[in-house]
């Protein structure tokens, strides 16, 4: 865009403030969903044990929604993009999350290093089929099938951290050239020895990006832009104030 340096800086500041306001508004809707962190004895066991990390997003889809300014009204338009075969998001996010937990001193290995391809496919199928939310119970924990549970126990794994991606939502604002990315996922921590769920909640990766001509620029080069954004967002979510605090790994006075 044309203009003086001061005008460009002011415009960038307004866009940043808009992104923060929009994300705050979005996340404020999640405040009402209280999440119970893990119990203290469970946390001690979790920190001392070995965990496997499995992130699965079976749909492999981006859902775009755009607010288009039309002077006298605003149009909302939607479209989807599928990327199966273009990006192994399950593998990448399993590794990203495993690194995140490792950074929190939780001995975590991504499942592709532990299970055979057939077992991984079975796990992905089970996670694809599971209903993360239930009108009566709220968030429903993922139940690990016996065969996969035994396969992990045989490898010395005590806990399964499973994350089932729900939908990658991208909201684009054509007037400002800004897009917000909201990727919720259902997170469950299961003690494989007792087959008990220690933690279950809906969490999310949230980020934003600028675009020049189209919000779909993020698809270029094998979705390179989106991969980098989600990688950064994952790292951010392992900060003291976010996921570790929600899980109970960080006490309130430390957060």
């Amino acid at each position, binding site marked *: 865009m044309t203009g003086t340096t001061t005008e460009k800086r002011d415009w960038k500041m307004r866009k940043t403030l808009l992104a923060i306001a929009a994300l705050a508004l979005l996340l404020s809707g999640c405040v009402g969903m209280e999440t119970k962190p893990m119990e203290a004895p469970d946390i001690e066991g979790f920190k001392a044990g070995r965990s496997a990390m499995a992130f699965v997003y079976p749909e*492999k889809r981006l*859902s775009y929604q755009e607010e288009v300014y*039309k002077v006298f009204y605003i*149009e909302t*338009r939607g*479209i*989807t993009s599928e990327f199966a075969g273009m990006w192994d998001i399950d593998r990448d996010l399993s590794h990203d999350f495993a690194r995140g937990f490792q950074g929190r001193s939780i001995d975590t290995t991504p499942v592709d290093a532990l299970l055979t391809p057939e077992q991984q496919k079975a796990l992905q199928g089970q996670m694809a089929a599971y209903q993360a939310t239930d009108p009566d119970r709220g968030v429903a924990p993922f139940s690990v099938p016996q065969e996969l549970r035994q396969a992990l126990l045989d490898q010395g794994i005590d806990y399964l951290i499973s994350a089932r991606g729900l939908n990658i939502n991208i909201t684009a604002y054509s007037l400002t050239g800004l897009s917000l990315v909201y990727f919720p996922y259902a997170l469950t921590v299961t003690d494989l020895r007792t087959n008990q769920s220690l933690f279950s909640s809906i969490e999310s990766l949230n980020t934003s990006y600028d675009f020049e001509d189209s919000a779909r620029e993020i698809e270029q080069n094998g979705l390179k832009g989106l991969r980098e954004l989600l990688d950064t967002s994952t790292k951010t979510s392992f900060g003291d104030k976010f996921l570790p605090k929600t899980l109970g790994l960080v006490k309130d006075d430390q957060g």
Partner: protein
Amino acid sequence: MLYRILMTVLIAATLAACAPTIGNKASLSEVSFTVGETHKSQVADTLGLPANMSRSEATGREFWGYREEAELMGITYAVPTGAGTVSTFQASTGEDGQYEFKDAAVVYVFDDQGILLDVRTPNKTVQAKQ
């Protein structure tokens, strides 16, 4: 004079209205791919990722469905409601942006190497070039 200023402002505002940007990168009726030669990565680079993707395990063929444009999901408009106040209203079309292959404007079929085998227009709304 006031009328001319008002008309200028209205025309400028109308011209400043935006066009949707989340549709395909190019118009489906204007792109041209070669059966037997074009790779699916070239289709993705030209049009963007497909709205719907399907794969036949038996034949190894992959089907990419594209919409003509992003679907209208609703509009938000403001109406003066008296005493200097304005209220906003939303009207929804009931659509959620999801759709099935049967709604595709064009379906590209690729072999197991990603080479274009066929171009289909199930709804015949677009005359796709080959």
